[in-house]
């Protein structure tokens, strides 16, 4: 008998929660495929190490962009491999709850459930990421008070107001931490005439990226390819430059939070001032982002102790209480 699973199929990372066991897998959502034979060569960390460094016959890709499946076939194969790795076989077909962005379209929703069923699940249910994040972040969503959660992932930023176990207001945009990486890549190309890869851009973001000026602002030397000579080149990038480069996606995230605050009923809005908003997701770990949201909204922002795991823990709780929480799944409310 297979143990039921919850999967956070994120643009950046995929996490799997097994009923009764907790988180059993956490790795990048990357798959490396042989372009000629179609054979899967690596997944997860191993495939991530290959990004931008593969020979022409290998392609290392992220099958999800902006929280949506861009390659149905590769996503299905990735889910199948994930299920195999956690012990699902042809004869053991578990129930699976998958976390998806709330702004997902009907077609995308069907693509995810179909891919999961074909990969070996007996039943596939979807749950909105902000709702799962609120459960996993341990917010008191069982009470009649306003809980606001901001989930910044690789491809999406979702803000939700939750009370009494349901979503009251929701705002989602397809801008996430990968857009911050892309903004850094574009800036370095435009201002310094150097091409850098997405992994380098991510490293710059982690090392010196910030949304607000701070005491630990630093500079970093980055290496890339000179666009004129084609030779390797090192340039120095300051924290202020990076802040300028990423301002557009960061401003879009802050605006999305403001729009959600504007949608919230007044009775709940006063709760936010007293209780604050909660930031989850890997994108929320950008230095100074919580402070920037707090400055622009005048509402306190608190960081989740486990920003990367909150969503899958929430979905895991739903799989542990499958019958009682069936009403939370996306199909059940439409």
């Amino acid at each position: 008998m297979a143990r039921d699973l919850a999967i956070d199929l994120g643009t950046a990372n995929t996490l799997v929660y097994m009923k009764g066991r907790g988180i059993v897998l956490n790795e990048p959502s990357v798959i490396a495929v042989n372009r000629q034979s179609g054979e899967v060569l690596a997944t997860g960390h191993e495939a991530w190490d290959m990004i931008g460094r593969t020979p022409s016959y290998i392609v290392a890709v992220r099958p999800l962009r902006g929280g949506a499946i861009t390659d149905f076939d590769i996503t299905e194969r990735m889910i199948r491999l994930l299920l195999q790795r956690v012990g699902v076989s042809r004869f053991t077909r578990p129930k699976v709850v998958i976390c998806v962005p709330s702004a997902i379209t009907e077609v995308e929703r069907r693509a995810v459930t179909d891919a999961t069923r074909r990969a070996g699940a007996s039943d596939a249910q979807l749950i909105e990421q902000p709702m799962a994040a609120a459960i996993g972040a341990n917010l008191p969503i069982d009470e009649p008070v306003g809980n606001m959660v901001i989930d910044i992932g690789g491809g999406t930023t979702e803000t939700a107001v939750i009370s009494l176990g349901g979503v009251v207001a929701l705002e989602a945009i397809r801008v996430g931490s990968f857009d911050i990486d892309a903004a850094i890549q574009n800036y370095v190309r435009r201002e310094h005439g150097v091409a850098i890869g997405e992994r380098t851009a991510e490293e710059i973001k982690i090392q010196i990226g910030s949304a607000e000026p701070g005491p630990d602002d630093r500079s970093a030397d980055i290496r890339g390819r000179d666009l004129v000579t084609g030779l390797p080149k090192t340039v120095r990038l300051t924290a202020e430059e990076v802040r300028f480069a990423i301002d557009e996606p960061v401003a879009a995230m802050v605006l999305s939070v403001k729009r959600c605050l504007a949608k919230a009923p007044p009775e709940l809005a006063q709760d936010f001032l007293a209780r604050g908003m909660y930031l989850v997701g890997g994108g929320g770990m950008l230095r100074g982002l919580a402070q920037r949201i707090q400055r622009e909204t005048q509402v306190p922002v608190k960081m989740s102790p486990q920003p990367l795991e909150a969503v899958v823990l929430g979905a895991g709780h739903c799989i542990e209480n499958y019958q009682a929480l069936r009403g939370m799944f996306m199909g059940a409310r439409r």
Partner: protein
Amino acid sequence: MIAMSFITSFFTFMAVVSGGTLLVLVYLDNRKSRIDDGIAQFRRHIDALSPEARRNSVHHNNSDDRWSR
């Protein structure tokens, strides 16, 4: 003949009234149990989201205490 006709009509009337009353009672009972089901289902839903219910799934993966309310 008139008496027979009256008795038949009376019993027919009584049968219709009894049947109608029975149907109304069955409908009201169903409606009440539907309302009770809704309440019970909502209660189960909320209880499943309580901190106590989340202790096993979320807390054993998260050593930090529930955030300040």
